[in-house]
């Protein structure tokens, strides 16, 4: 018997066997429309979004978007410990499940979530009417169950936290949604890039960086946009890489268009959630 037993982890069975799948039929693609061959350059992968799944929280949301799965719970407004603040405080915490990243990360050790939660807080603050909640705090916890790239996690995280905040009945200016676009080495603008596309971009940039010093030839980059599509406002832009101004403007426009599509999905799931829970005492 093992003497040192870590109670914080779920013990796995001693023997494990990989699952056996039925072989694919000839010509049958692997499941999911996530591969770029199945979708246009300006088409995002489908999103699954549902609110109200975590019953202990005041509001919650769950999103599956491409290679990202996030569970988000919102607690509050709850009374905040002194000192007094005339505005509400937003506490946001991003946690990665140990199985969320590849390679598997050590539990509770990584520093990536701090950076992510700061960026996410910045994108969320313009969406929430914090002045409505004096002396209170709103706590948001995001648990990343599966992740591919940090930017995809951020954009899905923004969408799902908006859903969870709205589900909690907390006053907002509008629903925030995130979207990612990428300009590849051929100058093509790809909406909602998957991990392989981003890796290709990075290795290209590295190769060019070694070859020509600072310059990056034809230009390639990645852009993350946080937007309030209902108000026609952009809350946050986060860009990596180097592209021409015209190209950057095109990227922003594509990203805003994509965030509008995401908003439709978000609105639909919020309406469904509201009907399921009943609104204003009526069911």
């Amino acid at each position, binding site marked *: 018997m093992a003497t040192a037993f870590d109670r914080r982890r779920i013990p796995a069975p001693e023997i494990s066997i990989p699952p056996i799948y039925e072989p694919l039929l000839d010509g049958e693609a692997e499941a999911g429309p996530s591969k770029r061959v199945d979708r246009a350059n300006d088409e995002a992968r489908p999103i699954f979004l549902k609110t109200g799944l975590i019953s202990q929280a005041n509001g919650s949301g769950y999103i599956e978007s491409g290679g990202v799965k996030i569970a988000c719970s919102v607690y509050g407004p709850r009374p905040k410990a002194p000192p007094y603040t005339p505005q509400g405080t937003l506490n946001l915490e991003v946690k990665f499940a140990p199985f969320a990243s590849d390679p598997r990360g050590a539990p509770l050790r990584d520093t990536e979530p701090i950076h992510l939660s700061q960026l996410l807080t910045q994108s969320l603050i313009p969406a929430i009417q914090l002045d409505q909640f004096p002396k209170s705090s709103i706590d948001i916890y995001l648990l990343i169950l599966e992740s591919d790239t940090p930017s995809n996690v951020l954009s899905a995280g923004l969408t799902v936290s908006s859903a969870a905040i709205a*589900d909690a*009945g907390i006053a907002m200016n509008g*629903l925030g949604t995130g979207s990612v676009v990428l300009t590849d080495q051929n100058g093509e603008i790809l909406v909602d890039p998957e991990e392989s596309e981003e890796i290709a971009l990075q290795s290209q940039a590295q190769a060019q960086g070694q070859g020509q010093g600072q310059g990056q030839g034809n230009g390639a980059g990645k852009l993350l946009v946080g937007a309030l599509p209902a108000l026609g406002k952009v809350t946050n832009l986060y860009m990596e890489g180097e592209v021409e101004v015209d190209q950057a403007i095109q990227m922003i426009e594509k990203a805003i268009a994509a965030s509008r599509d995401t908003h439709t999905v978000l609105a639909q799931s*919020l*309406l469904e959630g*509201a*009907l399921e829970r009943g609104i*204003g005492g009526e069911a």
Partner: protein
Amino acid sequence: MSSSTILLPGQPLPSSLTAPPLPACGSGCYESNGRILASIVGIPRRDGSVVSVIGREESGNTPDVGSVVSRLTPQQAHLTLTTSNDRPLPETSEEFQGVIRISDIRLTERDKIKMGECFRLGDLVKAKVLSLGDARSYYLSTAANELGVMYAVSEAGNPLLPVSYQEMEDELTGTREKRKVAKPEGI
């Protein structure tokens, strides 16, 4: 109820509700560039010159609250807020606290108030929020006829019925206890 009547944050209120004269914004909505937009998921409603959006739960500032007395001192009563504007407050691990100071209990004869003749532990009290109060609690007031104790139990443990503005009676034993009684609705 069809889903088309439900508004989402950032969505403008239907023009039938915002017809001139431009109404004031109540809870659940806000004004932006001359338009009135919803700020929560809910159903819009217009009461005279005020439009509001009614959501699932009340979760904002608390002008009119129901609360339970949790601690009494000779100078003030400490309460735990349970409802706001007749809607339950969201359930959280910590609860919002309120304080009624002895001078805020009654409108008249404020200098003769004795705490023990107004509230007892466990009483259900309807109060108004006076201010955001100190760092910990809201300051509440019951200085109005319709505010005060709404439900209480006697020393024998039976429910009390209001008999006057400062007395409640145990129907079973007939004993009377002093309280700052809220005027029941419809009288």
